[in-house]
């Protein structure tokens, strides 16, 4: 990944000549880039005047893609390190419910509720990793267990404490909270107001908000997604720790022999995945003002799908955060775009499946062709 350190003499016989084109083609992101171009072309042709590419429409699929991105970054790094986590979806529901219980039921300040929830969830991630390392069981089994454990608590705790499974009132509790604004707020409001005033984007036509732009800022959810993608990408490709992640997922034994702390890397990646799930949950809770026991169902698969479209191998050791981010973008755009394209709702899953399959096949095909893998 990062072997562009110093210029070498052109005649060095130890270095194999690789053309620039070929080097570009073996990058794991390639499939994701092609998929993104194809998907956008498809929707520009079929759904151009449906509102999908109005400011409101763009914000809609960007937000959904950003959600996928947040959990895909964690899932991607973990998968490159050779493990995966099926408890992501349950963790989202659990983290949201913890924030609600601490802030609404127990009346803690929201920043305190968020911090303790992060600590709790990241510890559960560490526990996941610890059990996988200690027992040598596949992460599939261990995290499957946590899928049920966490979902169970997410239903049981509010049901026992409040006799209901949706706890609301978080918006009121979060009013003026400095940390809550970091997850639920919006930025660049002034810019959008200006765009609205200038007639460049749609504004509300009636009611108490007439004159305000329909899109009044970039949600922090999107900011978090971009930040996590950048941090993940830099970590993976520009640091020694990034090499350790590849090594741990490629051949753990060889990596151990050459001094890579494989166990520590894997546990840290489980913690990071839990962290991403908690970011997702916190943004969701702050946006919607309530936590529900059914939040995050099946999100673990959506994260894995995004990562796989993005070119990572299920077996570990190969992949890229940018690819996963593009995978998330494709997934979000396809899922939302099919609504705009006017596809019958019962058929929309068929299209989703076909396009996902197409993207993955394209991905694998290109990689095999280029790398000579069989």
């Amino acid at each position: 990944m990062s072997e562009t350190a110093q210029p070498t003499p052109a005649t060095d016989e130890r270095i194999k000549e690789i053309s620039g084109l070929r080097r570009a083609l073996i990058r794991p992101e390639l499939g994701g880039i092609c998929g993104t171009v194809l998907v956008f072309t498809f929707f520009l042709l079929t759904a151009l005047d449906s509102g999908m590419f109005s400011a409101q429409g763009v914000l809609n699929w960007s937000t959904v893609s950003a959600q996928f991105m947040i959990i895909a970054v964690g899932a991607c790094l973990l998968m490159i390190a050779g493990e995966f986590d099926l408890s992501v979806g349950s963790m989202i529901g659990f983290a949201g419910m913890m924030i609600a219980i601490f802030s609404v039921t127990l009346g803690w300040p929201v920043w305190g509720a968020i911090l303790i929830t992060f600590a709790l969830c990241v510890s559960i991630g560490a526990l996941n990793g610890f059990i996988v390392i200690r027992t040598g069981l596949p992460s599939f089994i261990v995290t499957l267990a946590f899928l049920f454990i966490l979902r169970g608590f997410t239903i049981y705790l509010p049901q026992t404490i409040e006799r209901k499974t949706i706890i609301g009132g978080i918006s009121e509790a979060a009013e003026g909270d400095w940390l809550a604004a970091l997850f639920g707020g919006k930025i660049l409001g002034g810019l959008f107001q200006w765009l609205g005033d200038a007639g460049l984007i749609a504004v509300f036509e009636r009611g108490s908000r007439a004159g305000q732009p329909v899109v009044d800022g970039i949600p922090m959810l999107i900011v978090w997604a971009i930040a996590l993608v950048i941090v993940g990408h830099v970590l993976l490709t520009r640091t020694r720790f990034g090499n350790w992640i590849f090594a741990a997922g490629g051949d753990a034994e060889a990596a151990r022999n050459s001094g890579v702390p494989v166990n520590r890397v894997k546990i840290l990646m489980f913690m990071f995945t839990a962290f991403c799930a908690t970011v997702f949950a916190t943004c969701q809770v702050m946006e919607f003002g309530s936590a529900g026991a059914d939040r995050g169902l099946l999100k673990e698969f959506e994260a894995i799908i995004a990562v796989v479209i993005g070119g990572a191998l299920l077996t570990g050791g190969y992949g890229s955060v940018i690819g996963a981010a593009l995978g998330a973008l494709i997934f979000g755009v396809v899922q939302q775009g099919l609504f705009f394209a006017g596809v019958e709702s019962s058929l929309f899953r068929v299209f989703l499946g076909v396009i996902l399959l197409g993207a993955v096949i394209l991905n694998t095909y290109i990689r095999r062709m280029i790398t000579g893998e069989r």
Partner: protein
Amino acid sequence: MKTVLKSLALGTALVAASSAVHADGHGDLNYVLVSHAPDSDSWWNTIKNGIALAGEQMGVEVEYRNPPTGDLADMARIIEQAAASGPDGIITTLSDFDVLRGPIEDAVASGVDVIIMNSGTPEQAREVGALMYVGQPEYDAGLAAGQRAAGDGIASFLCVNHYISSPSSTERCQGFADGLGVELGNQMIDSGQDPAEIKNRVLAYLNANPETDAILTLGPTSADPTLLALDENGMAGDIYFGTFDLGENIVEGIKAGTIQWGIDQQPFLQAYLPVVVLANYHRYGVLPGNNINSGPGFVTVDGLTLVEEYAGEYR
């Protein structure tokens, strides 16, 4: 590469085909109905039949959208998305006020007419700026059922809740308990949605609490397996059994005397009426002055013939 191009071509062809179906003359008005139901919930078929018939009769286009897993945060995105696609009207459930109010208010503010159906209350519908509410107030329906059961001499019950993550489900059980004048306590169980699990949980509960007077189920999803459970432990016809909603098996149960009554909130009307109301409002500017209560209506063994004929389809 070829495979991908082929599948994309197929996709384009199918999209073109489906939009061709839409563009067959009618459809100067288009509406989107958004529900909170997961894909697995068969009760919503009646809703789909209702909007299909209304769309046909009124000559408008109506699309049905739902979050596949029943995740309400996903539902909020669907409403935002529906609003962005610029329909003439949105018909939506309001199953969680906190989650859905923002997207609905935005839709109203951007000039889309909204009608709330099924879940929510008339007050909440007014608060989000909807034209009206069409449905059955859940707590009141549960309360009415509880009062009816109290009149029949019931003192304890089991509420089989198959959709515990929706607040309106709990309101039904709570209303029933209040109608009876007893504490809800542990009389409500989270049954899950799988029929075998529901059946066995009901069996286990009745086994552990043999003094239970009555069972309340919240729809066909939980009523059908409960019927099987009662057949198995021999309590069918012996225990007082009331249910929300109708379905083929529920109607059979009422006919057989196993089920005392079904509370019909008339999903057909919940889907059909908003389409009719919106179409007439948009074409002629006429609008009923009040909300419409589609239920509760108690369906008992009297007058079952029509109900039976259309159970699961229009009832």
